[in-house]
C-alpha cells in the first residue's frame, strides 16, 4: 500500500506490518529533512501532494516492483505538510525471501517515487527566502537537484 500521510510517520509500526514468516530480508528507506541544499542553509521543508494521484501512482510503482523483483511485500508512505529538520518525509519498506531482491526493489521504489509522484517541495532558507524545488525558471535563482530530503 502506498499512502500520503498528513501526520507523523511511525516507521516501527509500518515495518511491523510487513512481518511475514516467508520473509528472510527486510530493507527500509527513510528520507529525512536535511539542513542544506546546493550550499544553502535550509530551515524547514513544506511538502504538498496531489494525494489521490500520488497514491494511485505510488501503488503502480509498488506493483511494478513486485513484477520486477521476487518480493514478499512492499509499502510506502510520503508525508505532506511543513516539516522541521530531521523529520521523516518518506518511508519505503520491502520484504523478500533474500536480501538482493529487497535492496533492489527498495531502491527502485524510492527512485521512481521521487521522479513520478505528484508531490512538491518548498524549501525555507535561513535568509527568509523560499523556493519550490525544480520549478525555477530563467532569471530566477537556480534551485533544484538534488532535492533536500530522500
Amino acid at each position, binding site marked *: 500500500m502506498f499512502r500520503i500521510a498528513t501526520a507523523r510517520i511511525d516507521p516501527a509500526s509500518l515495518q511491523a506490518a510487513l512481518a511475514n514468516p516467508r520473509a528472510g530480508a527486510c530493507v527500509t528507506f527513510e528520507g529525512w529533512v536535511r539542513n542544506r541544499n546546493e550550499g544553502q542553509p535550509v530551515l524547514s521543508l513544506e511538502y*504538498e501532494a496531489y494525494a489521490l494521484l500520488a497514491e*494511485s501512482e505510488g501503488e503502480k510503482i509498488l506493483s511494478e516492483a513486485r513484477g520486477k523483483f521476487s518480493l514478499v511485500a512492499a509499502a510506502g508512505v510520503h508525508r505532506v505538510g511543513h516539516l522541521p529538520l530531521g523529520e521523516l518525509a518518506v518511508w519505503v519498506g520491502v520484504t523478500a525471501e533474500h536480501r538482493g531482491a529487497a535492496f533492489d526493489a527498495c531502491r527502485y521504489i524510492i527512485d521512481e517515487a521521487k521522479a513520478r509522484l*505528484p508531490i*512538491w*517541495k518548498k524549501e525555507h532558507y535561513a535568509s527568509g527566502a523560499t523556493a519550490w524545488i*525544480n520549478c525555477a525558471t530563467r532569471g530566477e535563482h537556480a534551485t533544484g537537484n538534488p532535492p533536500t530530503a530522500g
Partner: protein
Amino acid sequence: MPKIQVQYFAILREQRGVSAEELATTADTPAALYDELRARHGFSLPRDRIRAAVNDAFVDAATPLRDGDRVVFIPPVAGG
C-alpha cells in the same frame, strides 16, 4: 461553452491565488487550457515543463477535454 474544473497545486496554486476554480472555456485540450491560463495569470512555468492529469489520471496534454472534466496541471515534481 464546456465547463472544466481546475485544481492547482504548489507553485501554480500560489501564482493563481486559489486552489480550485470552475471555468467556461473553448480550450479543447489540457495544453490549450494551460496556454490560456498562463496568458491570463502569468504562470512562470512554460507548458513543456507541465504535465496534465484529467479526472485523477495522467494524460497526454493533447487529450480532448470534455464538459465536466477535472483538470490538474502538474509542475515539476520533487518528492522524497
